[in-house]
């Protein structure tokens, strides 16, 4: 059962071959059984009652009764929402994030909350205050980050689907490391209301699941305009249209030869090339494109994201919610400083410092403004590329999941985001899908689409998944 798609689970439920309660308990049992070894979840909803929930709300759709796990960045009313931080260890928000309420309205059963790098800052999930998440494919390795808990949970089939968020690669990289499918939609597609902010102009909620089709179904329910988010676009409702057959005839796929050549790991390079070959075998045409300014993306990102974060995290001051120091403070500044340095981990403090520096007078024009100009150059590069192609296919990460502790210095991790950051800066839809593993560890291929064209990346991935079964592979220890 744990290998069934959402459509297949829906059929089982519809034919009453299984009840929603039974379905939830299958997954809840797995959560309880496997989470101790993975640390993917920070909270398990032990007392959900699916039938009552569904009857009470008269929900009967494709997603009703389907279990889901929310990244602990999404506010859940009355349920602790930590963002992986000591700062929020006992914070239970009085409201639901729009994503959470939309998915519960669609009938999805929230099984719990997923571990993550603190405030979504990290690429290994080692920066959670609640301990590192393990990669189900090799418990000594990291699952990637920051949505590592969501990725590990889906990879180990603790849930068929999980919400996640992506600021510079936080959906795509862990999806690649854990061998699952994960999509970050276009900026403005998914409401950010109730999603704890890291870098507001980059953060975007998304989905992780086994297959592109599952991602599409859940994304459809999550997406859409929200009055509570001024960056949420007003468009017609988006509907996921699953392709009926795998032919990619007429599809122009942009590739960047330079990026593939940069892959130092021959196995990853081979997997990537093979995946591109699969696309051509289905009739797609590969066209070489270039993003001439993409090599500046990481530098621009590590100015912009920390700058926004430094302001977004100023509200954590111990006054109205969250951690407050227990040390005696005779003035407000002492209280702020003790609270914040106790409540934030080292990586978060490092990024706050970096962002504070980038915004400080004297540096603003040279760094922050300059980085925003580079952002435009990169965005224009993409526009140019998409005037020639329908979709781009590029690597996700130059490496497979690395061992815990291998990159104790966070800064070393930054450059590894080089393939995911450009699309983030431009706000474009992008996903990672599993391709041929390397040395027994998952490898992902990234598909990037034009602004608001989630359809093209999802259907390309779905077609790829019709002729391959990498996405169905699962770590043996969790079968």
């Amino acid at each position, binding site marked *: 059962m744990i290998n069934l798609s959402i459509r297949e689970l829906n059929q089982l439920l519809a034919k009453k071959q299984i009840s929603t309660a039974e379905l939830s308990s299958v997954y809840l049992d797995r959560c309880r059984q496997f989470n101790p070894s993975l640390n993917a979840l920070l909270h398990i909803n032990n007392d959900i009652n699916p039938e009552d929930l569904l009857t009470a709300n008269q929900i009967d759709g494709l997603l009703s009764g389907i279990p889901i796990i929310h990244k602990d960045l999404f506010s859940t009313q009355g349920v602790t929402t930590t963002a992986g931080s000591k700062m929020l260890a006992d914070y239970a928000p009085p409201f639901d994030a729009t994503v959470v309420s939309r998915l519960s309205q669609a009938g999805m059963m929230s099984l719990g909350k997923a571990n993550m790098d603190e405030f979504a800052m990290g690429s290994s999930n080692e920066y959670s205050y609640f301990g590192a998440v393990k990669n189900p494919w090799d418990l000594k390795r990291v699952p990637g980050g920051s949505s590592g808990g969501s990725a590990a949970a889906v990879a180990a089939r603790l849930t068929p689907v999980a919400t996640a968020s992506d600021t510079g690669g936080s959906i795509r990289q862990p999806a690649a490391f854990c061998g699952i499918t994960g999509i970050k939609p276009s900026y403005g597609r998914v409401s950010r*209301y109730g999603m704890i902010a890291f870098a507001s102009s980059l953060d975007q909620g998304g989905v992780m699941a086994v297959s592109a089709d599952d991602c599409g179904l859940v994304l459809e329910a999550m997406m859409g305009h929200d009055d509570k988010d001024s960056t949420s676009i007003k468009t017609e409702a988006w509907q996921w249209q699953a392709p009926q057959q795998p032919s990619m005839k007429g599809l122009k796929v942009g590739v960047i030869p330079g990026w593939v050549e940069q892959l130092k790991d021959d196995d990853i390079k081979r997997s990537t090339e093979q995946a591109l070959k699969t696309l051509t075998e289905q009739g797609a045409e590969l066209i070489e494109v270039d993003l001439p300014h993409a090599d500046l993306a990481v530098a621009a990102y590590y100015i912009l994201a920390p700058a926004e974060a430094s302001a977004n995290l*100023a*509200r954590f001051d111990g006054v109205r919610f969250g951690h407050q120091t227990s040390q005696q403070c005779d003035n407000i500044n002492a209280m702020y400083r003790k609270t914040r340095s106790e409540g934030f981990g080292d990586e978060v403090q490092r990024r706050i410092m970096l962002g504070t520096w980038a915004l400080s007078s004297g540096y603003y024009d040279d760094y922050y403004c300059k980085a925003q100009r580079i952002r435009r150059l990169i965005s224009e590069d993409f526009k140019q590329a998409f005037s020639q192609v329908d979709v781009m296919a590029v690597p996700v990460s130059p490496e497979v999941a690395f061992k815990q502790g291998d990159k104790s210095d966070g800064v070393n991790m930054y450059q590894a985001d080089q393939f995911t950051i450009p699309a983030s800066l431009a706000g474009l839809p992008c996903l990672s899908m599993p391709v041929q593993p390397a040395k027994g560890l998952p490898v992902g291929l990234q598909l990037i689409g034009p602004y608001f064209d989630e359809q093209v990346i999802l259907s390309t991935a779905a077609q790829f998944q019709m002729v391959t079964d990498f996405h169905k592979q699962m770590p043996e220890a969790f079968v």
Partner: protein
Amino acid sequence: MSGQWDVVIGLEIHVRLALDSKLFSGASAQYGASPNSQVSFLDAALPGTLPVVNEKAIDYAVRFGLSIDAEIPEVTRFARKNYFYPDLPKGYQISQMDDPIVGRGQIEIETEQGTKTINITRAHLEEDAGKSIHDQYDDWTAIDLNRAGTALIEVVSEPEMTSAKEAVAYMRAIYNRVTFLGICDGNLQEGSFRCDANVSLKPQGSETLGTRAEIKNLNSFRFIEKAINYEIKRQKKILAQGESVVQETRLYDADKDQTRTMRGKEDANDYRYFPDPDLPALNIITDRLDRQRAAMPELPEAKLNRYMEDWQLPEENARQIAYDVAMAKFFEASQAQTKAKPADNAKFLITDFNALLNEQDSDLADSKISPTDYAGLMDAMASGEISRKIAKQVLDKMWASGESAATIIEQQGLAQISDSDALHKIITRVIKDNPDQVEQFKAGNDKMFNYFIGQVMKQTKGQANPAQTKQILEEQLNNE
């Protein structure tokens, strides 16, 4: 260094917009609710909450901009101003930096030397902070976030005022403008209109500005004048001793009538402004400008011209009324209902009605006399039924009793004596009773004429028709 100094003053005025809800949230913006009862999750800065801008705030800011002839940019943007303070929940204030909603404009003020134009650098939208209450607990500061997030426009002037009086005149001009436009309730006690003053001195005639001190949170016209005058004196003393003024923020203590350093702000702050990523840029379309132009009430400048040209008011009176929202409103409403000459109405309103209001410690906005009743009084005066002096008495009685002018005049027999037979008799008697004064008059002492008028008024308790009295008196004296 001794010698003469030029005073340079620039003002930043915070105008609370008269809105039902806050700038970025749907919480009530009403003043005076119980602490923390008007705080949305956004106002408390709960993680994940996001701002959505109140359209009326945009409209009001645009309306203000149009009224001062300012450039309204096509694109405006919000920015975050970063600093920590317990009544600033997000740790940043959403304000505007590079692309404010109102660009350069100007406004006229009245000075002793006549009319002066003050340039306004910019005006921008921003959210207010909450309230810190320091005196309620010994060891704690109490925070009330009801005010947090309410909409303000900050109006920044060029440093073009040269005295405390001019600063007050400018503040009044802005005050009158925003209340005129109906975008601010003008309630000073509730902090709807507050001002920070930047004060500096420079050697007379020098082009270079001196170091300035900023005096924060002045919310009364009286205090701002006193605070600036104190600050000028303080800086003069420092400079006279050959020392230099420190650039700092100071607070005015009204009880002691002095300014003092604001201790909480000693760290030179770097606000690290940057465009707020939660809010895309706003496009101000021509339609919006047109709508606000149409919604704009007649401005004082236009009123001034109209009063002078159409109604022949003397400039001084016209200006006094045109620039005072309440007075202009009352004046126009009453003038529409009376046959009295506008100039007479204006004069009575400015002099006599104002005196009554001062006496009663009230103002026109809460006048107990309606424009209609007041118009009735003007009619009685215009027809000659009562004199201006009696009209003043009637006005007092109208205020006290709430009765109309006609009722009071009739009940108390205050109508003027315009009966010429009666007046003839009274005047004959006055002349008869004062032979010495008649002699003096005949001998060429013209002042004696007024003495006789005074006597007639005394006899008639002021009810004699002045014009008629004058005419009859002239006749009779000449016949003596």
